């Protein structure tokens, strides 16, 4: 008896189950692999081309041998795979059986939540639209007021200019006599007018700024009213779940005749069926389909 004891885990299988499976399959289907090598071995013995009836017969036999191998291999593969598929179906069924009722409940609750959030989003959108409308109205009034104030200031300035002109004309009549005195008075008058004009300009600018500010507020409210449904309806639970309305675009075809060509496809299966139906027993086909070339195709069939 050996003194060396096997270590723990020495009799475990290979770590990679796929490698183990490959090994088992190769061992179990050794003959199939040998047959594959035999068939592939024919390639180097093939003649360059088929020149007589004998080679044609051999080629037909070889094709039949390959077909038989393929069928056999496919049948073996199906049989080998079936237990795995059955196991996969069992796993799917096990978990689906648990998750399906939960999914159904989830769908039901989702429908309730969607209805609520749609209502919330609509309400919020209506509120923001009302605010935006009110702010637009206020901005419009402020703008009208600013225009009115600017008009009053302009009229006052024009009246002042007229008065100055008249005064200048009167002063011109007495110019020779009181030139020095008039010049002094003129300077003082110009300074006063400039000061008055500055006051009027400042008032007009202030009115314009206020009107612009009111208009910006109205624009902000307008943007809010057009906000995404997700932003308008988003709610967050204390456990951290966030719920919001997601809008995706879907479609249904109402009238196929109106759909542009780029969204249509050719039904190849229908064409094949039509060709098969139109082929006569003596293998003639006179079917014509606009835009489709229907032609005979020749290929060897080995049965």
């Amino acid at each position, binding site marked *: 008896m050996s003194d060396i004891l096997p270590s723990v885990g020495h009799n475990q299988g290979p770590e990679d189950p796929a490698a183990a499976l490959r090994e088992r399959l190769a061992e179990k289907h050794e003959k199939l692999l040998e047959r594959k090598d035999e068939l592939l071995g024919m390639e180097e013995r093939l003649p360059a081309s088929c020149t007589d009836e004998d080679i044609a017969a051999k080629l037909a*036999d070889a094709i039949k*041998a390959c077909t*038989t191998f393929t069928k056999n291999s496919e049948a073996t593969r199906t049989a080998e795979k079936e237990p795995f598929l059955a196991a996969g179906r069992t796993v799917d069924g096990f978990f689906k059986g648990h998750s399906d009722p939960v999914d159904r409940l989830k769908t039901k609750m989702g429908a309730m939540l969607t209805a609520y959030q749609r209502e919330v989003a609509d309400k919020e959108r209506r509120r923001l639209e009302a605010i935006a409308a009110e702010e637009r109205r206020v901005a419009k009034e402020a703008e009208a007021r600013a225009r009115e104030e600017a008009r009053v200031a302009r009229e006052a300035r024009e009246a002042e200019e007229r008065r100055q002109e008249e005064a200048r004309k009167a002063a011109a009549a007495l110019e020779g006599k009181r030139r020095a005195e008039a010049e002094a008075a003129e300077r003082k008058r110009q300074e006063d007018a400039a000061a008055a004009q500055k006051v009027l300009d400042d008032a007009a600018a202030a009115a314009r700024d206020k009107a612009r500010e009111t208009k910006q507020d109205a624009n902000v409210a307008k943007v809010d009213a057009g906000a995404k449904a997700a932003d308008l309806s988003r709610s967050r639970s204390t456990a951290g779940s966030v719920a919001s309305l997601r809008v995706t675009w879907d479609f249904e075809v109402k009238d196929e005749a109106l759909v542009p060509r780029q969204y249509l496809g050719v039904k190849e299966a229908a064409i094949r069926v039509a060709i098969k139906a139109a082929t006569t027993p003596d293998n003639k086909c006179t079917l014509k389909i606009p835009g489709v070339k229907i032609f005979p195709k020749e290929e060897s069939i080995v049965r």
Partner: protein
Amino acid sequence: MGSDAVGEIVRHYWAARLVKDGVDVGVMTFFDGPMVDGVILDRSPRWQALVGGEISARAILHGDHLPVEVDGTFLRNIRPTTKANYEYLVSHAAYSTAHAPTNPDAAPKDAVDFMKFTPF
């Protein structure tokens, strides 16, 4: 085609199969004395069939030159053929039996197993 005359003996040539999905074997039918081990005995003539590479002919129990029913074997898918093809079938079967036992025509009583047959 399908028959010739040697002396006054008319011979007919056929390709047939011994089993379903088997290989073709050459069959010759003739009206003569019984052929045993390749020798025609001096007996009354009768319709006989020489199947494949056999050297003793079998009696045709039903039919005349057409071997509908042959003693001791069952021919299926019988088609007339040429003498050349008959000789090819017989000689090729003999070659396969002697030198290439994996060829299907070395075992005409078995269906061709395309999982074992490698034509090239």
